[in-house]
């Protein structure tokens, strides 16, 4: 009767043999003996879709819009076959009392067994009445739904950090989910970005369902599988950075050749996200590929770290690298020296030849 995870996989053309193999691998990756594989298979064949309450606070709905752009899995399959998206005011048929009743029903019926997904954040000023749901402050709905949930997903930079409405002077006291006073102590998965990448969002959901556990989180609460490396680390324009080849003006020759955007203010060196690898919209592109620097939209407080076009001046706090501003210095001699130092250090890790560099290449 219920379309289970197994049914979905079968419908998507995966054979039973592959399915069982998948279950064995899952058991192995969870550190379980092969004897657990049939149990996992059984669970996947029979368990109902997990209910999800997707609440919206102060936000712009870009997270939902991103989510529906997922190519693998398709948003359609997530909604119809992976989850039971019982409350999401952006797409749900019900409204008013009928909508509010769903929250109560899920909380009571599935105590401890539903996921709370939060898009946006609650404002705490003015008794919370800068965001009103059903005549009451959104923060009340949030706290009520959090009380009995299994885990919380903080979608996007609003729920994770505060984002644009929390930029100075934060007139509504918009507060990220994990900082809401009195919120039940539940595991929180932050999936930051403005918005997060569609396939990152659906991968986090699929991971929860497939492996039946939270993904490994970094110290800031983000899944490390997508947020443990900087955009700069995997940027395809990185060789131009290393070679000191920079765009100096919009639409100059270097821009047309796809050189490094560091001097145009790119925040790739300080931004932890998967844009340069997973890329956007089914791998179509990502900001740097389309000629604009990264604005750092998955980082805490990125709105208040100076202009998006202001060059980073100090990025040496990230481990092994030299102060990258040395590379970006305008004087050719400085650039040359910077590249040499930089290359020498990175060579330790990438076995690159310092001799390959072309000091002063931007001249």
């Amino acid at each position: 009767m219920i379309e289970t995870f197994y049914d979905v996989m079968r419908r998507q053309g995966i054979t039973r043999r592959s399915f069982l193999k998948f279950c064995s691998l899952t058991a192995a990756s969870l550190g379980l003996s092969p004897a657990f594989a049939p149990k996992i298979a059984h669970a996947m064949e029979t368990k109902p879709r997990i209910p999800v309450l997707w609440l919206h606070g102060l936000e712009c709905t870009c997270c939902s819009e991103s989510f529906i752009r997922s190519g693998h899995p398709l948003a359609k399959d997530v909604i119809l076959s992976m989850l039971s998206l019982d409350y999401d005011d952006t797409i749900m048929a019900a409204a008013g009392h009928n909508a509010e009743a769903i929250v109560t029903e899920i909380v009571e019926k599935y105590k401890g067994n539903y996921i709370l997904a939060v898009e946006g954040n609650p404002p705490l000023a003015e008794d919370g009445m800068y965001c009103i749901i059903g005549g009451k402050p959104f923060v009340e709905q949030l706290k009520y739904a959090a009380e009995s949930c299994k885990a919380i997903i903080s979608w996007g930079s609003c729920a994770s950090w505060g984002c644009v409405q929390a930029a100075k002077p934060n007139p509504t006291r918009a507060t990220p989910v994990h900082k809401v006073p009195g919120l039940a102590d539940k595991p929180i998965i932050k999936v930051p970005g403005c918005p997060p990448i569609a396939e990152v969002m659906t991968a986090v959901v699929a991971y929860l369902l497939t492996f039946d556990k939270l993904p490994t989180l970094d110290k800031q609460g983000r899944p490390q599988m997508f947020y443990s490396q900087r955009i700069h680390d995997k940027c395809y324009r990185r060789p131009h950075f290393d070679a000191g080849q920079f765009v100096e003006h919009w639409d100059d020759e270097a821009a047309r050749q796809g050189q490094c955007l560091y001097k145009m203010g790119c925040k790739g060196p300080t931004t932890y996200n998967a844009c340069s690898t997973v890329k956007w919209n089914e791998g179509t592109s990502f900001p740097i590929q389309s000629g604009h620097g990264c604005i750092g939209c998955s980082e805490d407080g990125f709105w208040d770290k100076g202009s998006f076009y202001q060059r980073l001046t100090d990025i040496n706090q990230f481990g092994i690298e030299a102060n990258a501003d040395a590379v970006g210095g305008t004087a050719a001699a400085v650039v040359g020296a910077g590249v040499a130092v930089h290359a020498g250090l990175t060579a330790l890790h990438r076995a690159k030849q310092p001799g390959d560099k072309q000091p002063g290449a931007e001249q």
Partner: protein
Amino acid sequence: MTVRNTPNGFHLNDAGRRVVVDPVTRIEGHMRCEVNIDEDNIIRNAISSGTMWRGLEVILKGRDPRDAWAFVQRICGVCTGTHALTSVRAVEDALNIKIPENANSIRNIMQLSLQAHDHLVHFYHLHALDWVNPVNALKADPNATSALQQQISPSHPKSSPGYFRDTQNRLKKFVESGQLGPFKNGYWTNPAYLLPPEADLLAVTHYLEALDFQKDIMKIRTVFGGKDPHPNWLVGGVPCAINIDGIGAVGAINMERLNLVSSIIDRTITFIDQVYIPDLLAIAQFYKGWMYGGGLSGTSLLAYGDIPDKANDYSASNLLMPRGAIINGDLTKVHEVDLTDPEQIKEFVPHSWYSYPDEAIGLHPWDGITEPNYKIGPNTKGDRTHIKELDEAAKYSWIKAPRWRGHAMEVGPLARYVVGYAQGNKEITEQINFVLKTLDVPVSALFSTLGRTAARGLEAQWAAGKMRYFMDKMIANIKAGDLATANVERWDPETWPSSVKGVGFTEAPRGALGHWLKIEDSKIANYQCVVPTTWNGSPRDQQGNIGAFEAALMNTKVERPEEPVEILRTLHSFDPCLACSTHVISPDGTELTSVKVR
């Protein structure tokens, strides 16, 4: 009990039972609606309340104007990009920056892709469930659906009985699971749903098909802007450089990228022609007897215009989307609209949760002041944090009340199409006449909920076609040797005058959008947005004129007051966007000390 005639021609009577819809779902952001219905279940009083406020314009103060697009883009992630485009235009207007032709074409293609995408998603994923009953689709004979499909759109390849049977089976399993997800608690037994099962199955199938397809449309914006939602923009042009066959072309907008965009444009045109428009007409055929929801659309309409054909010319004659105002229902006269004229656009706050020193007067966006002032009226039922019924005689919304020469106005696709029709715009007139003829209804049928929904579909079709036009135009320009995409002459703030002001405008999917800003000493001194849902969702003004949402709900019959699908239908026909509409400015440097932090 209050009985009152509004200056804009509505008879309000709050004697009957109060029906509250909060949250209004399937919109962007948060809103509340209250109506009074009489003994025959007819709406005699309507109240629209914006229930969120984020204060973005306060946040913008003191920032670099070149960054503003990124902030205001986050006003809305559904109409993503349109605020950013409006912002870069406002800054360029203030600093007198001229953009290259290629940048104009790319911006237009991005804006048009939004129109096509947003309208499509609105129709299938936000609005359809007001007309379509997915549970009823289970009763359909897939052969009948297949026959219907082949009748209304013979060219669409996905039309076999097996195709519809597969969808039906999937839906059946879904419903039988008892976990109805987004369809839970819908009004599926309500007699207001009029489609036969085979049409319901057709529409539900296309709900899923459109969900799969829509993501491809936005790849156009990812090519030029690097990501979507929220692509990147640039004051002075666009950030993506063009390089067709030079060194490093592989890192820029090259032949492969242009081909990708071109192919998506073609598929978008096809999808809208073969799926969206035929579905719209087929559904409308069953509902054309339901002619409620006209509201202000027959009397007061406003459009700023958009899609400049040539770069840097924002005069009405160069805009491919129409510009003008219609008042008093007189379609023979389209008034000129000037966003810089202090007498034309003014915002009022007597029923909004803001305070003015003198609330009897309205203020032009360049001179506006705003302080949040959350205060409920004495006749509110409930209390300030648990509102049961609003007191509309007092302040009752986070939305201000903008007025054009004192008139409450409707904006959006219907406003644009009626203005275009009144101006004799050939393309628009042909499209409208085709629909009227197909449905066999008079011109007056336009002024309705259904008319609003139809205009949106026609505009999506128009927008898809115009993407092709600008793509061809850009290719011709590149062929002529022009690769420029950005003008950096005034990129450096040191080249800027010490004090300037500017205005930028677009036609967002939901209607006329304007941003007004002042720049002093290279920083934003004042930023003000008046957005489509501020117009459409506005509360009453000092004269008692009701706004477009409120007007459109008046005199509608609600079959079952506890299942107000008719209210949702009409509100959704505007495609409300609440995150957009609720905002504030603080132009005089006032710190927001009035915000109470408890």
